[in-house]
């Protein structure tokens, strides 16, 4: 793991609810529409995180899991 300080469980008891909502948002979407939805999600979530150092670590973690 590149950054031990990210990746600890923050979702807690809502983990399954969140995952269900995520899949539901993609339901019946074409691949193109799903790609666009994911892009919007990344952008909105990045803005909610805000902190640039955290975002860099998240990006690195996603690129090389």
């Amino acid at each position, binding site marked *: 793991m590149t950054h031990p300080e990210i990746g600890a469980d923050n979702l807690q008891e809502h983990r399954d609810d969140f995952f269900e909502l995520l899949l539901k948002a993609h339901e019946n979407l074409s691949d193109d529409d799903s790609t666009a939805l994911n892009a*919007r999600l990344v*952008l909105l979530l990045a803005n909610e995180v805000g902190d640039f150092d955290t975002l860099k670590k998240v990006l690195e973690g996603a690129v090389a899991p």
Partner: protein
Amino acid sequence: MPHYQGIRYPFITPPELNQAVSGRYPVAIIGAGPIGLSMAIDLALQGIRSVVLDDNNVVSVGSRAICWAKRTLEIFDRLGVADRMLDKGVTWKVGRLFHGKSEVYNFDLLPNAGHKMPAFINLQQYYVEQYLVDRAAEFPDLIEVRWLSQVVSEDIGPDHVTLQVETPEGTYDLTADYALACDGAKSAIRDRMGLAFEGQHFEERFLIADVEMAESPFDEEETHERWFWFEPPFHKGQSSLLHKQPDNIYRIDLQLGPDADPVEESKPENVIPRIKAAVGDRPFELDWVSVYSFTCAKLDQFVHGRVIFVGDSAHTVSPFGARGGNGGIQDVDNLGWKLAAVLKGKAGPALLDSYHEERSVGAQENIKNSSRATNFMTPKSKMERVFRNEILKLAKDFPFARTLVNSGRLSVPCSLAGLSLQSAPTSIRGLSPGTACPDAALEQAGEKSWLLNHLGGEFVLLTVGASTREIDLADVRHLHITTDAADAGLYDCEGNVEQQYGCELAYLIRPDQHIAACFELREAGKFLPALRRAQAREPQEAAQ
């Protein structure tokens, strides 16, 4: 016939051809564009004589650089030409951003009431050059502009440069202590010196068209707007920009894509329908069309002994964000006082090295910003396009997404913080050394003035506060701004000086209106070392 009919400047036989003597000048400037002419004026204000050599005898053909940013206007004001530019130029107030047919958002560009200059004006490069030529003529003993005088070779010595100049009446040699290459992106002197000019080339082609149109396309005739389209309905899959210049000339930029044929695309029958689609059925006339692609590149070193590169010859950027001409004028601002100090024997060549150090940082910043804007406008992959388009979709409802939309980040002065000439700040208060001085309104005995008009051209020690105290620093003018309305001195009438600069602090301001050092008043012992450092004298001692 183009709207602007430029003056043809006469060729005047130089003394070298009349008397067959080789002239010697402190400075030879190659290129009479905005950079070369500004350079000559800045040097003349320092009392330095120069000769400007240009291979043709007209100002810019076509409008070319049209957006002049606030810092540039402040520099032009110091050079004594800004008022005329402001009078003629167009200041836009409203920006509208479209994606396809629909407006994503619009914004007001409100002027900063505490600053003399607006965020920027639109003014054709030919007017800028014409006004600079007129201003240069006000220094007949210090500036000689020689038209139809092409530099064809140079002999670079350890303490001089000899230029061979070709003219309609023959060829002659001219020797200068320094030669300034202000000969643009395709600099011939750079090529002859064999200097690498490498960077990122963008395949995308762009078409710019100037049209003359009596009727404004904007809702309110007097409110000038700037329209930017991503994927405009009239120009599939690309981007477009529309903004206004003086004389009812409108600039339309159309991104053509990498496969466009420049000759085919420039034909009126191909250009006119696209403009109609953008501006509707208003009658217009095509004034000037140009198809271009661009490279973001810079020289590794701007100072090569007695040859110094200034403006596009040293660095080129994409046009997005208006960082070409504006970046070049900041080069002039940075180099003028330094070269003058060296020629007067007040500083050594180390001061010229700081020109490279500081403006190289500026060029890198400009290249980074303009490359990012270009990448936003020209997505290279499907995923890049998806992110770009989803940002535009989110921008309708989410303010953060509007800040991500990049149709060009407007030229702002780069910070010189941490570079050789600046002293490290010792106080957490006040503006950081390396910052270009922000403007503010002042008043004295009922007379209004602007802070920046009291700065520049020489080193100034600026203090702000209610109490005045004499500070004596050799070769430095002391300027005190009072925060007490009852004082007789220059008064901070709107509180903008105190708000921006803080009180009871002393600033050492460079001749180019940048802050070299900032100290608490009690630290008077640090003023002189800071001054020496800002003049590239005794750097080790001053660094303490």
